């Protein structure tokens, strides 16, 4: 299993929204891409934000002291042993407390479709040794996966 965090290269993102589509599709139950685009059953958990000249894909930061995990009344949100905040979708009751307490506005609840979305760092893909969907799909490499084990080597090579 890969361990690490997603880093954003601030100046490389040009808001193509590939990460958004790839994120939603990789978490969706639908296997056919065209079916998915017509009738999406999942919202992206990474969202492109543009403020003036600054464009950034905003995603969950997997905080060290997460307020969403503390407030969640059903313990659907929890921090696992790899410091990833994961969500058990079946346990979520959609109360929206995490939406209010999150300081970065990351969790989202779609009340019409009854879908809760929050980045889980593509934990299923990480277990298979793959990169998260947003990182893999980013055409300009604005999103990077920073692996914890390689930390020392990377610093040296710089």
């Amino acid at each position, binding site marked *: 299993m890969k361990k690490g965090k997603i880093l954003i290269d601030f100046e490389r993102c040009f808001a193509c929204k590939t990460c958004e589509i790839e994120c939603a599709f990789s978490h969706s139950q639908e296997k056919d891409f065209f079916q998915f685009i017509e009738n999406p059953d999942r919202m992206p958990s990474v969202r492109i934000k543009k403020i003036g000249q600054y464009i950034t894909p905003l995603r969950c930061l997997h905080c060290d002291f997460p307020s969403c995990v503390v*407030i969640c009344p059903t313990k659907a949100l929890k921090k696992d042993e790899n410091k990833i905040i994961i969500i058990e979708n079946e346990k979520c*009751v959609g109360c929206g407390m995490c939406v209010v307490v999150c300081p970065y506005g990351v969790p989202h609840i779609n009340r019409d479709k009854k879908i809760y979305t929050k980045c889980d760092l593509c934990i299923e893909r990480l277990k298979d040794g793959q990169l998260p969907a947003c990182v893999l799909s980013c055409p300009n490499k604005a999103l990077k996966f920073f692996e914890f084990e390689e930390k020392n080597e990377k610093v040296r090579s710089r």
Partner: protein
Amino acid sequence: MENVEIIIDGVRKVVPKRITILKVAQELKIEIPTLCYHPAIEPYGACRLCTVEIEKNNRKMFVTSCNYPIENEIKIETNNENVIKIRKLILELLIAKVGYKGKVKEIAEKYNVEPRFGVGDDDCILCGLCVNVCKEIIGVNAISFSSRGINRDVSPPFGKEAVDCIGCGACAFLCPIGTIKIEDLNEKRIITKINANLELEKCKICGKYFVPKKFIEYIKNKIGNVELDVFLICDECKGENYIKRLASFSLTGGKNE
């Protein structure tokens, strides 16, 4: 913990004592339809759709799998003829009450139900998810069941207005047939069916109304009366704030300058 050996759909399995049949079935990926079950809420056994047939001491009987704890060696059939017959009947009765709506429609299509008792147009199947989530998880008790028999319904106190409701929307999120709906009209949040009328808080930055005032009060109480700015800013603005902070950091303390 003690273990018991059971036979479920012909498969032998050792399970811990007092686990419910539904949980075992879900582990084994056996599909059992449910309407009133939610993993975070105590099983309530109202919809009866999760009925299965068990054989205990050479006697067969039907039980609801969501709230039947396995105590001794039993044989479980989750999908045989009798079970399907019972589920079809329950679905026919549900359709006679509420018609084809939401999850009822989904399951009825799966079971090819032909309703013999007509198609009704009520708005509640009395699954109790909204009442139980409000009581157990949120702890507010804004709504409950009222009346008996055919008049039984989910309603706010005395059928008037849900004064204790904090407007979190968990009931609307869980309602299997989509009766409870949340409508945000400018400064008011109206929740249909449970008759709640809540004032919304204005976002400090963009001025959009986004979350009920009572809900913020509730969260403040829950974490011990802490006054935080993040509660009063809508999630769009929170994201923008964060990016502005990132931007100023990259200009001053970042790599280029």
